């Protein structure tokens, strides 16, 4: 029973990542809850001493990808979630224009780029850890990161040129 608190230290970071990934509070906590339930089911598959954080983020990634796929195939499950989509957004006026723009641009990024950008920029994983978490080569991590950052930069420049370029 020592394992009772095994995952607890990782939960705040899983929640932060899920929020950023889904941009929806309820959906994010559902995702983390599913992730933890799955992790407990599969605990015997985790190799003790290996990177628990990467393992948990991998489970969360797989669940999210499967979830998106299932919603595509089952429109009735999408309907169930409509109210969650209407939940108030985090970014409010107080956050300032820059943050709201970033949030919007982030939501428009392709999932594969958004994941890499968040694991590097927010979760501060090493490129090797990101590669392991997502099951892709480091070279792919770097090309997705590069494209994500450039795409955000372009969109943010386009979002407010009048405000930012006053010279």
């Amino acid at each position: 029973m020592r394992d009772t608190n095994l995952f607890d230290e990782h939960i705040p970071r899983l929640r932060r990542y899920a929020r950023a990934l889904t941009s929806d509070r309820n959906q994010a906590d559902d995702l983390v809850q599913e992730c933890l339930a799955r992790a407990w089911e599969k605990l015997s598959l985790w190799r003790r001493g290996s990177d628990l954080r990467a393992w948990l983020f991998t489970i969360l990634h797989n669940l999210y990808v499967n979830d998106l796929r299932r919603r595509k195939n089952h429109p009735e499950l999408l309907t169930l979630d409509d109210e969650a989509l209407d939940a108030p957004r985090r970014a409010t006026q107080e956050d300032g224009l820059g943050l709201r723009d970033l949030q919007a641009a982030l939501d428009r990024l392709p999932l594969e780029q958004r994941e890499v950008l968040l694991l590097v920029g927010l979760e501060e994983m090493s490129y090797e850890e990101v590669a392991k978490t997502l099951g892709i080569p480091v070279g792919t991590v770097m090309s997705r990161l590069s494209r994500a950052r450039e795409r955000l930069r372009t969109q943010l420049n386009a979002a407010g040129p009048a405000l930012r370029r006053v010279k």
Partner: protein
Amino acid sequence: MNNQSPVTETELHAYIDEQLEPARCAAVEAYLADNPAEAERVRAYARQNEQLHALFDATLDEPVPETLRSNPARRTPSPMRYAALLAAAVVGGALGWALRGEEPLATTANLPQQAALAHVVYAPEVLHPVEVSASEETHLVNWLSKRLGAPVRAPQLSDAGYELVGGRLLPGADGPAAQFMYQDARGNRLTLYVRTTADGNRETAFRYAQESKVGVFYWVDGPFGYALSGELERPQLLRVAESVYRALNP
């Protein structure tokens, strides 16, 4: 790689993310000093990192909801929990023996045993009888529907004198299962165990299994197998089982 080789795109990112080998920092900084446009691009990327933290770091300081904390299958290692698990093992073994003679039917194989096990483990639980309480019923039902892969409903049993306490997700033999817990005015608890069936979309009659004090009515209806467990006399339990069935098939 030495200080003379040209700076790569990967190195620019590694510089931003503080993953660059120290020996290359000088080369990257010299490159940026000579290329204002590149320096501007790198500053913009670094600002994105800062803004991501500004947007999302508040989540780290939020209290973690009880539903997310610890192992859902064995949350508090209390003496009561050990007793419950022991009881579960005993009842499980006894049920397995008692149900030996039942005709084999793939869709209900183990269904009453699993339901009775889940019942004896969670029904006595005082602190954490459910993962998601009835006050968040919509969330509960949406979540369980997603995990079971088909729309699940928590039947209203007020007419039978039972109110929904909440529910939880459980590992079943062939995938996730859901447990809804109900309670009457005196605190007596019933649980409704729901899991997907192997072949789906068929119906069976009510069947009954009992061992020790736990009675189980179970049946298959559409994509799900249902099992209602409780420490009730068979006629009373049947009455509630019929209420469940009616509520699910209005």
